[in-house]
């Protein structure tokens, strides 16, 4: 569920982007690749092609199901779209360390996965 409370702002050339206390976009419509890159930079990450294709899968998942996926469905969706080699949690852990479902959803401009504790 997207929070409506702006906790801080992310500064990008287009302007200031409101983030909730957990770093998710308050207005999901403000997402752009620049925003994704700025969010990644805060995490000490640089987005490569392998990251972008996962973010794309996430954005398609959200457009279709109106929910951000937990880890298992994310793995399944990535496997379907990008092939079985990439549809593995170890691949996603390497790209989005820590909690891949949450981090990748955040960078993709999705709300926090609701059914992912």
């Amino acid at each position, binding site marked *: 569920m997207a929070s409506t409370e702006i906790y801080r702002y992310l500064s990008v050339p287009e302007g200031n982007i409101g983030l909730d206390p957990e770093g998710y976009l308050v207005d999901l419509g403000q997402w752009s690749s620049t925003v994704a890159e700025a969010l990644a930079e805060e995490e000490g990450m640089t987005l490569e092609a392998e990251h972008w294709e996962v973010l794309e899968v996430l954005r398609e*998942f959200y457009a*279709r*199901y*109106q929910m951000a*996926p937990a880890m*298992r469905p994310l793995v399944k969706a990535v496997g379907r779209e990008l092939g079985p080699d990439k549809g593995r949690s170890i691949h996603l852990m390497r790209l989005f360390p820590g909690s891949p479902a949450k981090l990748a959803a955040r960078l993709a401009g999705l709300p926090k996965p*609701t059914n992912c504790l």
Partner: protein
Amino acid sequence: MSHDNDMPDGELLVILRHGPHGSSWLREGLDVALVAAAFGRRVSLLFMGDGVLALLAGQGTGALGQKGTAPTLEMLEMYDIETLWVEAEALARFGLDEHELMLAPQALTAEAIAHAVETHPRVLTF
């Protein structure tokens, strides 16, 4: 929360007895099913009573723009929730045919429902 794959039947049966839009029970039941599945539990869903109306194709958002349940139902397979049942008696009462429902659920007689409840270690009613 890993487990052995030696148990063929589902571990959790979620019974959905409320239709969309009238209350939040349907959504809450689906949320519980999704959380359990996200943790690797084998979840079965039974649509019973008014709950069968959740499976009608062509549902939209509510009058106040409440999110519809159809996208969530379509998402169930991504959570590997593939055991989907519907109460045959409720279908008959509403004059519905199981073939016109989303997700191709299997219709269960009262006897089969009792068996499903019996064989799942956990059953939750919504």
